[in-house]
């Protein structure tokens, strides 16, 4: 089988949400000597891009987006031992968290998976994360983007607290702040000084890509 066919098999297994298929395709590709990074970047990532397109067109729903990301993880698990050197260059760093008092993580996790697919290094702080912990993570990891999620109107104000704490630590100007979650409106995001409110995980990730691309052009 040619390299192209191996890559096509990887791509298709992701589009078809096929757990067994991706593992088999990944094993066969590695046995055939396909480079592991090529398998990820030219096989699995294009598969995720098709899933993303289908989601945008309304052919796939959130469930398919979640499952596709999980299928890709299975494929990556198989090829990871074959990665030579330092692997793919990271396009940017994101610190992401669900704010204190809130345990909803579905949107955050999808965004995390999609950001990783796009080549971001993601420091996922999890759920119910205090303002202090987020700010400390920003100090430690120096990301270019901070992502915050909240599903409850009661926890939304925490996002504003984080932004204020970033300002107080003189770090607000060094990061873009993106918010996600059903109750978050553009007005709310603007009122607390966030840079963007994501419509959904996919749109949010596109915005992050746009930010780092603009940054790269400036550099």
């Amino acid at each position, binding site marked *: 089988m040619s390299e192209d066919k191996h890559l096509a098999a990887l791509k298709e297994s992701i589009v078809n*949400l096929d*757990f067994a298929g991706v593992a088999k395709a990944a094993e066969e590709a590695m046995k055939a000597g396909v480079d592991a990074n090529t398998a990820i970047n030219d096989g699995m990532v294009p598969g995720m891009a098709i899933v993303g397109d289908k989601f945008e067109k*309304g052919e796939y*729903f*959130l*469930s398919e987006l*979640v*499952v596709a*990301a*999980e299928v890709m993880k299975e494929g990556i698990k198989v090829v990871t031992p074959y990665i030579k050197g330092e692997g793919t260059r990271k396009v940017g760093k994101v610190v992401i968290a669900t704010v204190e*008092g809130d*345990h909803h*993580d*579905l949107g955050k*996790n*999808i965004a995390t998976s999609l950001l990783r697919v796009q080549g971001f290094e993601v420091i996922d702080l999890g*759920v*119910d994360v205090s303002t202090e912990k987020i700010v400390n993570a920003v100090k430690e990891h120096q990301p270019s983007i901070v992502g915050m999620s909240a599903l*409850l*109107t*009661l*926890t*939304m*104000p925490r996002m504003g607290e984080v932004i204020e704490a970033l300002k107080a630590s003189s770090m607000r100007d060094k990061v873009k702040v993106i918010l996600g979650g*059903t*109750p*978050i*409106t553009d*007005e*709310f995001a603007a*009122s607390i000084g966030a840079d963007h409110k994501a419509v*959904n995980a996919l749109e949010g990730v596109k915005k992050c890509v746009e930010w780092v691309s603009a940054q790269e052009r400036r550099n």
Partner: protein
Amino acid sequence: MDEMTRRERILKTSNGERVDKLPFFHNWRHMQIGWAEREARNRCMGISWARPSYVTKIHDVDISEQWLKKDSQMVYHRVFSTPVGTVYQDEMRAPGTGQWHGMRGWDDITPWHVARLIKEPEDYKVVKYIVEHTEYIADYYPLEQAKNWLGDEGVVMDIQPHQPMQTLMIDWVGSEGGRFFIHHAKYPDLVEELCQAIAKSREPMYEIGAKSPADIIWCGDNIDGVLVNPRLYEKYFLPEYEKMARICHQHGKLLASHMDGRVGVLKDLIAKTPLDIIEALHPPPMGDLPIGEGLKAWPDKVIWVGFPGSVYSMGPEATRKHTLDLLRDTLPCERLCVEASTENIVSNENLLMLTSVLENAELPLTSEKIDKIEKSLK
């Protein structure tokens, strides 16, 4: 025509009949008690009160409970031991939970499940055993008491749990990390089999609810089209609503479902359900379906509007504007009720602003009447 009672307004509207004023009420679980609430109720606000019609007994299952320290956090650890295996769940309770109903947030009402009942494929058969050994027993006292207390102030609803598939999605398997979707994709037979077992075990519960003194049978489904996509909704929810509605309607009860999420993508499927009331429908900015569109799409249903918490967060002026816009979007405002909140606490200022707009919402509303209401608020 004599002024209708708050109860008459809600019930008649929910039955598709005309009323004198737009029904406006609070959801008992989420409402403060005090001077503003009294004033709002004196002026026009009613109450909806949801209570259960049954109690459950689980047979041949040993349940043990204890506090445990896990990852430096105290969790309430509950173990269910059955002849076919054991499952457990962990709940995290914020300080103060259980001390009093402080209405600080959801912590007071629902503890966070940090470990769900179903984690691995082998847990399904254990949970199925528990489901098949759960008995539902009628207990109408809470409903009778609420009806007696409320009188003409409002309506009493029987609380039914999430639909079987929703029980798996948001209660027992959970959506954290997309676990339910991953299980549904990886182990479809296990998910399907358990869902069917839940549906079968609950049939007596539907009967109990339908025969209860409740005015309305309310399913706390928490439907959001982002999680419950149209394929899932059509396959698993529609047949269950049909089954429930058959039983409820036989006994003269209305059937309501709590749909406070983004349901635009489910609009056409919701039209096919036999549901009588779409409860807590949140218009944008929290939901994605304007109420006017919902009314057009569901000509045989009544919408109980859930007031978006994100509008409240912007203060009374935003509340005033949103309410007036809502009325203009839904003219003549028939087949409509407004709930003060189904999600969180409403400030006194917001509640009084909402009351000021709605106390003069005489039906059928017209643009002129709304302009008059708006002028009266300046």
